[in-house]
Structures are given as structure tokens and as C-alpha cells.
């Protein structure tokens, strides 16, 4: 049996086990419930109220915006799960048992990655049902680019998951991986929010402080947009909203490259760190 057929088998089997473990637990469902509730209350309800108050409102993506939010939160949750996946198994000792068998670093890491991506498909299925029902209920409707976003969301999740796996491979302890993941994601989100906000300001008649702040954020963004997993999705979102197929495909390709690099780094670090507690 060839090395790759062994690896493929290990990837498939470990991913399946992890997927079932996730689906048999309550965590994923609770998180989905909270996310859907948040988007229903925070986003859809607000959109509806705006329309009612003004009688008329031009909204770009009243269903796709909460969908972005759902995808982002779900991907972050899966990224967090990925961040603790390896370090937790190492702490629990089950990682060592797994490596008694025909499992190597590459197949293990890819198995973890595959499992989280498959979990994301489950998330997407629930999301589609949720937003379809909401759309029917409110008549907000889906925009034409929704399905482009649906496909793109898989690549966002991929980036987040790879990011989490990378941190998990590097962190010796669970708590470290969790803290690091949350801190970094918060930083990226806050930065993105601040950058978007300040870019939305009109270009004229700003105070000097705002001008300098905007300039610094714009320059720092040049680096952040390649490091932050969130940025890959934002690039794709922009391409979808503009109907720019070239940019859309480019954002998918860059997401795949980002994922590959992080997973590769995770395998290297994992090899050096070993499986022992």
C-alpha cells in the first residue's frame, strides 16, 4: 500500500471520527443557535425597523449581511476549535495513542483540517435553512450574488481553520492556544472595523488627526490584509459585490495559498514538537 493511500485513509478516518464527535456534542448546535439569534435580532430586525421607520430604505444585502456575520462567527468558532484541537488531544493523551498507528503529522493535520471544513458544510446547511426561512418570513430576499458568497465562505472558513490549526500545533497548552487565537482575531476584527470606518469618512475636510490616523491604518492594512484570515473573505466579498469574476477567483486562489502555507507550517512545527504531553 502506497504512502499516500495510507495517508488518505488516515485523513479520512480521523476526519470522520472528529466530525462525528462534533456532531454528537451539543457545542456546535448551541453556537449556531446563538449566532442565528444574534443575526436575527441584531441585523435583520434592525433592517426591518429602518424600513418601517423611514417607509423606504435602500439596503445592499439585508440577508447576505447577516449571512456574512454568521459565516464569520461560525468560521471563528471553528477556528477556535481548531486552535484547541491539537493541543487538547496532546494534553488528553489521545494524540499519542493515534500515533501508535499508521498516522503521521501530515495526515493528522490534514485530517483535522478536513474535519473542520466538513463541519463548516454542516454549518452552511443549517444557515441555508435558517436564512431561507427568514427570507420567506420577512420577504427580504436573497441578492443575486448570494451563491457566490456561499462558495466564497468555504474559503474564509478554510483560512480561519488553517489559522487555528497553526496556532494549535505551535501551542504547548490549550489555554495558550485559546488566548492567542482570541487575541489575534479580536485584533484583526477591531483593525478591520476601524479601517472600514475611517475609510468611509469623506475624503475632504477632515481634522489632521483623522487624516494621519487614516494614513497609518491604510499603510498597516497593506501588511494585515495578507496575515489576517478575515481579510481574505473581505477581498472576496468586495469582488462579489462588484461582480468582478477575476478578483473573485483571485481571492479564492489566495485563500488556498494562505491555507496551504499555514497547514504546511503547522506540520513542520508539529513534527518538531512531537506528540508527547
Amino acid at each position, binding site marked *: 500500500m502506497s504512502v499516500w493511500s495510507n495517508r488518505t485513509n488516515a485523513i479520512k478516518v480521523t476526519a470522520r471520527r472528529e466530525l462525528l464527535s462534533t456532531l454528537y456534542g451539543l457545542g456546535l448546535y448551541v453556537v*449556531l*443557535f446563538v449566532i442565528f439569534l444574534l443575526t436575527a435580532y441584531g441585523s435583520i430586525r434592525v*433592517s*426591518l425597523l429602518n*424600513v418601517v421607520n423611514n417607509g*423606504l430604505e435602500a439596503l445592499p444585502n*439585508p440577508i447576505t449581511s447577516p449571512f456574512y456575520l454568521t459565516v464569520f462567527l461560525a468560521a471563528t468558532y471553528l477556528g477556535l476549535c481548531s486552535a484547541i484541537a491539537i493541543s487538547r488531544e496532546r494534553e488528553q493523551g489521545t494524540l499519542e495513542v493515534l500515533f501508535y498507528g499508521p498516522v503521521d503529522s501530515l495526515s493528522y493535520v490534514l485530517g483535522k483540517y478536513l474535519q473542520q471544513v466538513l463541519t463548516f458544510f454542516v454549518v452552511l446547511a443549517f444557515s441555508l435553512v435558517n436564512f431561507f426561512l427568514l427570507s420567506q418570513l420577512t420577504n427580504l430576499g436573497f441578492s443575486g450574488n448570494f451563491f457566490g458568497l456561499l462558495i466564497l465562505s468555504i474559503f474564509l472558513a478554510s483560512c480561519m481553520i488553517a489559522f487555528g490549526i497553526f496556532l494549535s500545533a505551535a501551542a504547548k497548552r490549550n489555554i495558550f492556544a485559546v488566548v492567542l487565537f482570541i487575541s489575534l482575531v479580536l485584533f484583526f476584527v477591531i483593525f478591520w472595523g476601524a479601517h472600514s470606518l475611517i*475609510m468611509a469618512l469623506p475624503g475632504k475636510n477632515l481634522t489632521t488627526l483623522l487624516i494621519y490616523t487614516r494614513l*497609518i491604518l491604510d499603510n498597516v492594512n497593506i*501588511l494585515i490584509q495578507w496575515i489576517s484570515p478575515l481579510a481574505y473573505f473581505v477581498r472576496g466579498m468586495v469582488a462579489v459585490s462588484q461582480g468582478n469574476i477575476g478578483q473573485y477567483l483571485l481571492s479564492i486562489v489566495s485563500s488556498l495559498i494562505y491555507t496551504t502555507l499555514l497547514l504546511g507550517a503547522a506540520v513542520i512545527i508539529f513534527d518538531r514538537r512531537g506528540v508527547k504531553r
Partner: protein
Amino acid sequence: MKRPIVSFLGSLLIAVLAVGLVWAADPSEALTQVPQEVKEGQGTPKKEHQFVWSLSPWTGKEFGGSFAPRQVDTIYLLAGETNIMNSLRSEIYYWDITQEYMADWFGTKEEVDGKLEILKGNSVFKTVEKTPYVYSYPEGYYGRVELVTGPEAPEAFERYEKLQDDYYDAVSAYYDAQSKWQEKMDKLLARVRETGQYASPEEIPASPQQPEAPKLYVTSPVEAFVFDLPEGKYRIRLVDSNGEVVPETQKNLVVFSPRRAGVGYEIIPESKWTKPVLSDDRNQVLYLEGRRTFYLKPSHELEYNQYQYLKMSSLHKPLEGLGTRSAWMWVHTEEIVDAKIQILKDGEVIQTIERKPYYVEQTPGYALGYNIVEVTPPEEGETSEREPTFEAFRIDLEAKGKYVMRLVDASGEVIPGSERVIRSVRVASWPLYTIPLIPLLVGLAVVAWRRSLKSDIPEGMETQVTTEG
């Protein structure tokens, strides 16, 4: 693990600190095209006799105005559009209060002779000589502008001047006629007062008609460089009659195109006419609740890079547009007037609306409020009682299902980018929060099933078996 994580965090912190320190120590190092005066600030502005390029770039809807002093190294212009530049010298100073360069045009305004050379790479792409030009406003100063260049420019100005002269002559004749008419009327009135007999209609002279002022306005001819360029990066310079490059005239030139084109709408809700809603992106959907009336003012629009667009008309303001290199903006270029709006439902046209003038009539009395009423055109020979507040397309829709709105031109063709979906919303309260329960219910069912997994120990055998191991 501690070492790699600490190293990573440390590097990140150092990078942030480095950026912060650089900014704190010398913020201008992080800026482009921000010269010394901006950094230092000035008390009494220092005037400097400088060569400048004055610019009248076409912005998509009008000709802007700016100039590029020595401290500015890059000029921005729209691709495929006629732009105007001139080579001048003046006293230039930085005015700290408004954070911009100023030119003392009244004190010093020297034309610098030469030819404009535009280079692409190392070769001369285009050479432009000065040519006379005027701005012509056929519908008046606040209306549409036309650029007239070459020998037609002074001719257009002459025509304008003649029209003005003819108008003044007509006004003068009108005043004379008015004076004579008044004299006749005074005599007639005196007779009526004396005799007590009314004059017959035939006796009353017709009042002279006031001449109508010509709408046309044309600016004085000026000689400048008028040209258009395709998209790209160039270098410009002024070359004198000896073929020598005039010092301080070399600049970079970025000619840019819009990223997207479309139709933008200014939507005026009847209930809040002072708070219009903008819809620039064709992906936006218009949502209604209940029966609504709103007024649409569609315009052609183009999407530009915000930095390049702002810089185009404000090169003399170094801080303008900074930090917007990654931002984009829609610019409404021309209002669409000769079109109709169609409203479709299920693919069928249910309404066709034409553009009409409307007037906002304040409700008299103590109650606040207004009505938007259509302004009917005056009869032949009569003037309108009121000037319209705005002209727009009036849409009146019952919020039921989904509609599609679009603009069609005179030939019935749909104007690209003009489609918008209009949907009515259903406001749901508690059902909105029950749908999210679905995953939770599924999860609880799964967990309950897993918890129900038991051993297949026959009843009564449990205690015996549990002693094992």
C-alpha cells in the same frame, strides 16, 4: 512553544511600536506629497515665486480647479476626457489655517511660454501647444458647460458679447418704451380723474414687454494646454522655444479610469423629502413597508479610486485624500432626464413614469407639514406661478411582493445599471426568534440519543458485571 509565540508577539509589538514611533517622531515621513511647510506649520506665510501647473480637470460633471506647486510631484487626470492645464508663475505660499497652498494670482500671474511634452516611458507620447478656450454655458451659469477650443473659442465669446449687447440695447429700448407708455397712462388717468369717464379698452396702450435675458454665458478666452490621454502613467514637462526643459516643470502624471459605471438614484421619500436616500450600487434593493410614494432622480455614475479622484481637484491641498488609496467612491456625473421609469411585476410592466417638476408647498397655519405637488406647465404666453423645487420621477407603490424598476431611454432600451429590485417587507416579531431554535432542537435530540446508549447487559446481571476490571 513559548519562544516562537513570544517571538511572534514581540515582533508584532515591535512593528506597531515602530510605526507609532515613526509617526510620533516625524509623521511626514509616513506621508506622501506632504512638504516641509505642512510639517512645521507657519506663522506668517512665506511667499515663494514659483512655477505652477494650473489645472482645470474634467471631474465627470464639471471642470474643477487646482494647481500643482513645486512641492507636489504627481498630477491626476481622468482618462479619455478633455483636461486643461496652463503654465504659470506666481507667488505661492502655504496657508496653515485652511491647510492648503495659495497663489497670489492678483499680485503675480505670469504666463510661461512653451510646449507641453507628455512622455510615456522614455519617449515623447504627445506634444501639446497652447490653444484658446472658453467655457460655454448654454442654459446659464448653473447649467451644463461646454468646452469650446481653438478659433471657435473667441468666436463663441464674441457671439456671447453681441447677445449681451443686444440685450442691453433691448433693455434700453424697453425702458424708453416703458417711459413713454407711463406718460400716456398718466395722461389717461388724469383725464379719467377729471372727467369721471372711463377710458375704452382701445384707448389703453399695451405695456411694453420686458426683454428676456439671454441664458447663454461664455467665459473670456484663455490660452492653455487642452488635451486628453488614455489611461496610464506619464511624465510631463514644459519645453521652451529652444527645446530646453523649463526648470521645475517636470511632474508625474497619473491618468486613471473609472472602475465601474452605472446609474445611481437619489430617492426622495414623500414623508421625509429633506432626507433623500442614495442608491449607487445596483446590488442594493429598495425596501418598502406599506403604501409608499417616493421621487427618483437618476444620474449616470462612475466609480473612481477615492484618492486619485480627490487629488485631481485638490493638488494644492496636501492633506486631502490621504489614506484613501484603498477606498472607492461613486460620482454622479449627469442627471438622466430624457428617460422613463418602468415598474415591472412578474416580468410585466405595470407602470411607466415620466419625469415631472414638483413643488414643495408648506402647509399654512400653525401645523407643520408640507405637500409635494406637481407643477403644471404654464399656458402659452403666461409665466408659471411657481418655480419647481425639483424635477423627478414619482413612484407610488403598494408594498406587495417584489417589483423591478428600470430606466428606459427614448428608444425603449433599458439603460444599463439602472435596474433595482423593490421589495415589500413583512415585519415579523416573535417568529424571527423561533427559527434560530432549529439547530438547538436538532442538537438536543442528538445528545439525548447518545445519552440513551446503554450496555446490552440483561436485567439483573448489572451488579455481577460491574465488578469486572
